[in-house]
């Protein structure tokens, strides 16, 4: 044995040297590469850095050991068949260790990211197993190829299986990828108020791997597939604003006109009936024009002013009556008193002889109002302004006009809520200062929205 070693020392020394040099290079390379990698990954602040380093650092050296063994064998005096077999064996070992590294790395990264999109544990486990299977299959195919085994039939089988799986998961996959993207970019987060171009809007209450749930203005839950959030334009209004102590429940109002059977053909009859008529009559004749013609003019032409000017031809009195500022009266009784006062003053001047032509008498009417709840309940300014955009004009009318004067609340409902429940006294006062009689109803809606949007910003 010793004699053999002395005679063949060169044949042993060269492979050993080659092995040692390769391992040395591997050690040195590992040191350089990993310190550089650590530096750049630290700059990028990637949270997967430690996973990458710990998973690949040791196997990296092992690969150079295998490489060293392979080089040593190739430069040795062993027969070619032996070199080929050992080369294939070493190649197989390398593939196996590489596959193991990929499996561990992907498992650890999946366990890092999937929980962020609220993926259930079961789904994470399934995902990891799928990745494992894929890597093992690829590794096995490579090893079979190294040993010269035909792999084409196997590849075809795998392809068929992959296509079948892709078809089965074709709807879920886009949502999963979209969920990853949303999570990574943080463009939409739980608690944000969003509005899609397709109309859905509300607060985001949950985001998972498949869909995002929002609470709509009518308290319903809308489930939106994640892929839709990326396909459509979405406005994100951001974080919720302060919540009201009590939510605001929008109501609406519709009405029917009731005839009293009373009519006047001159000023004396007009004022006598007006003095005794129920307050609902005063309300009707000072407000219905606005409802009938809300699209047309913001001017609150009360019926008394119009009739006096048109049917009696008394434009002076008509102007005086039109000038009575409905907004400045806290209740209908005082409004009636003022209207009666204006007419009585005019009668005292002696201008009371005109009569309306037959058929043009003043017919006293009143409103029967039906107040109904809407499904809209708002808890903060954002929900409030978005609801304002969509409620009917009947709802706007009810809260700004009817509640103030006819129901005797003294102040419009919006101002009351803003001041008492949302602690927004300045905004409430600004809205209270609006003279709604100088706007058309749509104009009033726009003005309110503008004011509230300004406050939100």
């Amino acid at each position, binding site marked *: 044995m010793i004699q053999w070693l002395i005679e063949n020392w060169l044949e042993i020394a060269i492979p050993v040297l080659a092995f040692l040099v390769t391992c040395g290079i591997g050690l040195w390379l590992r040191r350089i590469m990993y310190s550089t990698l650590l530096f750049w990954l630290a700059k990028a602040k990637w949270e997967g850095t430690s996973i990458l380093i710990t998973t690949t650092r040791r196997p990296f050296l092992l690969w150079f050991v295998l490489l060293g063994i392979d080089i040593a064998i190739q430069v040795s005096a062993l027969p070619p068949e032996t070199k080929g077999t050992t080369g294939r064996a070493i190649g197989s070992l390398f593939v196996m260790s590489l596959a193991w590294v990929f499996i561990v790395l992907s498992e650890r990264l999946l366990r890092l990211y999937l929980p962020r999109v609220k993926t259930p544990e079961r789904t994470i486990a399934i995902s990891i197993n799928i990745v494992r299977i894929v890597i093992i299959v690829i590794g096995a195919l490579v090893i079979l190829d190294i040993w010269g085994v035909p792999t084409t039939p196997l590849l075809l089988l795998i392809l068929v299986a992959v296509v079948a799986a892709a078809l089965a998961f074709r709807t879920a996959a886009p949502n999963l990828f979209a969920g990853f993207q949303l999570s990574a970019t943080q463009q939409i987060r739980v608690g944000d108020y969003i509005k899609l171009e397709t109309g859905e809007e509300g607060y985001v209450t949950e985001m998972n791997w498949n869909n995002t749930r929002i609470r709509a203005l009518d308290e319903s839950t809308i489930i939106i597939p994640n892929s839709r959030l990326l396909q459509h334009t979405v406005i994100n209004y951001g974080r919720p604003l302060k919540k009201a102590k009590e939510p605001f429940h929008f109501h*609406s109002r*519709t*009405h*029917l*006109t*009731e*005839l*009293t*059977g009373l*009519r006047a053909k001159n000023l004396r009859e007009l004022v006598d009936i007006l003095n005794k008529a*129920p307050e*609902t009559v005063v309300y009707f004749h000072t407000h219905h024009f606005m409802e*009938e*013609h*809300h*699209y*047309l*003019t913001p001017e609150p032409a009360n019926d008394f002013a119009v009739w006096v000017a*048109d049917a009696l031809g008394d434009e002076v009195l008509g102007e005086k009556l039109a000038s009575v500022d409905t907004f400045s009266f806290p209740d209908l009784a005082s409004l009636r008193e003022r209207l009666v006062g204006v007419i009585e003053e005019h009668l005292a001047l002696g201008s009371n002889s005109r009569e309306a032509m037959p*058929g*043009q*008498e003043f*017919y006293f*009417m*009143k*409103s*029967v*109002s*039906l*107040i*109904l*709840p*809407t*499904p809209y309940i708002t808890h903060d300014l954002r929900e409030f302004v978005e609801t304002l955009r*969509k*409620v*009917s004009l*009947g*709802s706007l009318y009810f809260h700004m006009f009817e509640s103030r004067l*006819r*129901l005797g609340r003294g102040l419009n409902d919006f101002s009351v809520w803003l001041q008492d429940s949302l602690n927004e006294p300045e905004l409430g006062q600004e809205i209270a200062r609006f003279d709604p009689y100088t706007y058309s109803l749509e104009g009033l809606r726009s003005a309110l929205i503008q004011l509230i949007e300004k406050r939100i910003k």
Partner: protein
Amino acid sequence: MGKSAIEELKLVAAKLAGKVIQNINSTFTGGGVAEILSRMVPLLGQLGVDARWNVIRGDDAFFQVTKKFHNALHGRDERITPKDFAVFQETTQKNIREIELYGDILFIHDPQPVGLITRKKELGKKWIWRCHIDVSHPNEEMWNFVQPFVVQYDAAVFSAPSFSRELPIRQFLISPSIDPLSDKNRDLPQETIDSVLGKYGIPKDKPIITQVSRFDYLKDPVGVIEAFEIAKKSVECRLVLAGGAAADDPESDKVLAEVRERASNNPDIHILLIPPGSDIEINALQSASTIIVQKSLREGFGLTVSEALWKAKPVIASAVGGIPLQVKNKLTGLLSHGIPGTAYALRQLLTNPEYARWLGNNGREHVRHNFLITRHLKDYLLLFLSLEHPEDIIHL
């Protein structure tokens, strides 16, 4: 209409769940009431309201008598005899025995079935009398016959304030409405409009002024010609008087002859005799017009005005009947009181097309918000609910 408005309609309709609304009138076909009910009943059904429709029975003698009653209630000279009242009473009693009154709310339309109310004591339920005609200046004897029936109802409905009377029961104002999707009111393609103009030989070289009405003295077609001739001295224009002859109106031929004679072969005046049921042609003529005129001396509600306003045409109309509810002077159209006023309004609009367009657009919006069938539907729903709620403010 808007999604929220439809949601509100459904909410109101839901409050009538379980109630049956029984409409009763005199005929399923012909006339404005049948036209309204044929649209209204299915729409109520779509909202989940169980609305049904029955008619009373009567022979020719009965309907001759009710025609006389109709004219007399309108204030026209009619000689009503004791035999007429007897025929009415007899047929009413027959209907009371035969007709099944199953509704929770009985909605009785116009005078023909008004006598059914005598069953109220026995059946209870809620009864509404819907008056579609102008009874503001009736033949007093006629009204004195009808009134004792009317005051037994829980409520009465009129189409305009001026049509009402002093009654001890609740009275509501519900105006008629138009169906924007009907042949009379839907948008027509330009080819159709041109084809109708071609058919009647009406060139498009000048602004067209149109009045669509029966040839009846009360529509004052001769007055329209005179106003047109005054206006034409200042502005070039063309006049179209389109209407039909009513089978039950022997005067219409006479009026038509007088109108043709007054037109004196003026090439700018077109007198068109339109056959009944020509809704598309009427629509086309109105759509082709620059200005629509309705210079009636007397009018019921005058829903033809809403039909014209819906086409965004500036309208000049007389301040009679229900027209002032539709035309607010200088806002949604112009009201006139005679031939000189009509002529002046014509000149004003022909020389100020921007103002005319503004009036026309306002008129269309006014009809959209106040005289479409959806508003009518809402009013009926509220009417039914108000029977159970006598207060002025009802919280649902």
